[in-house]
């Protein structure tokens, strides 16, 4: 008899939906159907059925082909590489559990690694802004139950976080929002008319690269100051009108994404958006939330901040202290400036996301990648260690985009013999300890 597993957490995007229902074959080996997830979330579970899964570690040979090796050999290679390298980039972590991260950080402390996560090419700029000016924020549950002014600035949840709008931000009826979307005013600020703009009541089309100026105009308008006739293609009358509407709301929120974090000015765009949010709290309750991408990238920031005080790009290479500087200890800068001697990637695919120059530099260094699947990064690695999929084949803690921890669940067994991230990392740590004692 197939079993139905309820309240499953989706390990795909930062929305971390926790209402999935998954039907599994009675031997616990196969996923038969996925209910409640969006298309991309369902695909993550259905991926387990794809043929060609790698089930043994692989080592690259001089002729470029890969040869299967044992876990012991792969772990020994990794531990030796980490102990020898004077400065190692340990990047990824966004698609694994917080438990695995903390073991990884212990390794980094021992070997003087630099721990960086996907925020480095995503919401890192938001984290810099938060350090500079703080953040007035709330949970997605509060948005669902209270928000009546919702702004999507430089983000497109219709595609990137498909169930965000129906679960939290636009459509649901909540305790104080009984009319659902009819009781909310939705704004979308973007340089393109996105699918999210289609469901907004007001769409403000800002010229690309003028978000900082437009937010500056919003702040000036909130204080009743004078404005030039047009700001980044937006007439000043529109700015005054929207600011007045926002002031009359009971509970407002700004959701922002890559349109702010990775356009001209980066952290400054978030910084001024946070400052605007703070200003609006003079008139009503206002919040701001980053639309985090990878399902547990927030968790990596949480664990790192808790352990070292910095949310990403934590440089432990001096062994006795943690340092951090975006532009210096961030992965892309370390690689393009050739500041590391080895690379250790886990639970993400820099090969698909980093600039080419960074990956060319990476490909010339000893590299180990831990990932359930073959991806762009595994193909330029010396060793690829396959593992079980966290959130599907093994559980663990994750943090939602609003910094709420949610436990993910194991729904099926991993292919036989496959270890989990936690197991592989623990064995690497033990081997590192052994090698260091021997030395």
């Amino acid at each position: 008899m197939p079993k139905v597993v309820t309240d499953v957490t989706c390990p795909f995007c930062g929305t971390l939906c926790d209402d999935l229902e998954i039907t599994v074959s009675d031997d616990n080996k196969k996923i038969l159907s996925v209910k409640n997830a969006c298309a991309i979330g369902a695909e993550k579970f259905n991926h387990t059925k794809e043929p060609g899964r790698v089930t043994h570690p692989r080592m690259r040979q001089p002729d470029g082909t890969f040869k299967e090796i044992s876990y012991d050999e792969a772990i020994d290679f990794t531990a030796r590489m980490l102990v020898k390298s004077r400065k190692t980039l340990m990047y990824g972590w966004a698609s694994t559990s917080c438990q695995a991260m903390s073991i990884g950080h212990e390794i980094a402390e021992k070997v003087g690694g630099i721990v960086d996560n996907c925020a480095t090419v995503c919401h890192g700029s938001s984290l810099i802004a938060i350090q500079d000016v703080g953040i007035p924020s709330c949970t997605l549950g509060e948005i669902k139950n209270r928000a009546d002014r919702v702004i999507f600035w430089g983000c497109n949840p219709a595609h990137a976080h498909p169930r965000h709008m129906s679960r939290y931000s636009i459509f649901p009826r909540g305790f104080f929002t009984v009319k659902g979307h009819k009781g909310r005013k939705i704004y979308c600020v973007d340089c393109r008319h996105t699918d999210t703009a289609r469901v907004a009541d007001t769409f403000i089309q800002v010229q690309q690269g003028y978000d900082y100026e437009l937010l500056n105009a919003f702040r000036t308008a909130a204080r009743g100051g004078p404005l030039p006739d047009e700001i980044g293609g937006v007439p000043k009358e529109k700015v005054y009108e929207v600011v007045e509407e926002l002031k009359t709301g009971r509970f407002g929120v700004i959701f922002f994404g890559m349109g702010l974090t990775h356009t001209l000015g980066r952290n400054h765009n978030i910084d001024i958006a946070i400052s605007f949010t703070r200003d609006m709290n003079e008139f009503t309750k206002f919040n701001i939330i980053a639309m985090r991408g990878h399902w547990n990238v927030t968790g990596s920031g949480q664990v790192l901040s808790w352990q070292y005080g910095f949310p990403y790009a934590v440089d432990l290479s001096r062994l006795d202290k943690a340092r951090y500087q975006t532009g210096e200890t961030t992965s892309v800068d370390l690689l393009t400036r050739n500041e590391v001697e080895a690379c250790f990637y886990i639970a993400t695919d820099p090969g698909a996301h980093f600039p080419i120059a960074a990956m060319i530099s990476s490909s010339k260094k000893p590299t180990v990648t831990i990932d359930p699947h073959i991806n762009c990064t595994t193909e330029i690695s010396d060793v690829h260690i396959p593992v079980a999929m966290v959130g599907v084949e093994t559980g663990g803690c994750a943090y939602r985009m609003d910094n709420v921890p949610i436990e993910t669940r194991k729904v099926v067994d991993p292919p036989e013999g496959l270890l989990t991230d936690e197991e592989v990392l623990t064995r690497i740590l033990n081997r590192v300890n052994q090698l260091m004692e021997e030395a």
Partner: protein
Amino acid sequence: MNTVTLTVKQQPEIILEADCITPDSFAGKTAAEIEKLPVYQGKQNCTLGDYFKVAGKAGSTPAETQIIVNGDCSRVKYIGMKMSAGEVVVNSSTDMYTGGWMKGGKLVVNGNVHSFCGLGMEGGEFIINGNAGNFLGASYRGDWRGMQGGLIRVKGNVGSDIGTFMNGGEMIIEGNADIHIATHAEGGRIVIKGNVNRRIGGQMVKGEVIVFGTVNVMMPGFHYNQDVELTVDGVTAMFQEYNGDLGERHPKRKGEPVYGKLYLKK
């Protein structure tokens, strides 16, 4: 004043962290002692003598010590960091954090400097006879204290984010600047003889920015006030004075708000 001459004898394989190259750590030491000062390549502890030939003898105090560095230092970080007196002359380009948190004395770089130089500088004179990267005279991440005192003079161009959270001191840029000048500034003065790309004085509370060249895009929060005559770095000219950032909080003096000032040469 006694002079210590450092000459690069071996390039670092990765990058060298040499925060000991300051009159403060050299003072009172012989060449042999200076050679033993610690430098780092990642987790490897090395000594200054592994990478530099050391000649001469330091003065008994930092103020009596001059350091001359020869050879390619473009992969050496932290030169002159936290120096409080004396003089350092680098006849090369340098890497990050050159002159970071400098408190006094004089630091001259006869080349370019990378990013994060003069970070949180408190005093002294920092002369860059080349270009500077980003975050010159800015604050360390998350710190609210950028450059607080002293003088930075750059012969060439600078990158972006200069003088972020600056609250004192003076920066004179003889070339051009990119984006984000004096963001969040609460004091101090930045003079740019060349052109600026965009975003001068965003979220600025107090302080002055003076631009001789052109500005591609003005911040909407800056409002024209009046024309004024100013003498800046020996040049007297007419400037348009703007108040800003009107979107930011401003303190009051004698009941009147105090604004950040932007002066554009007419």
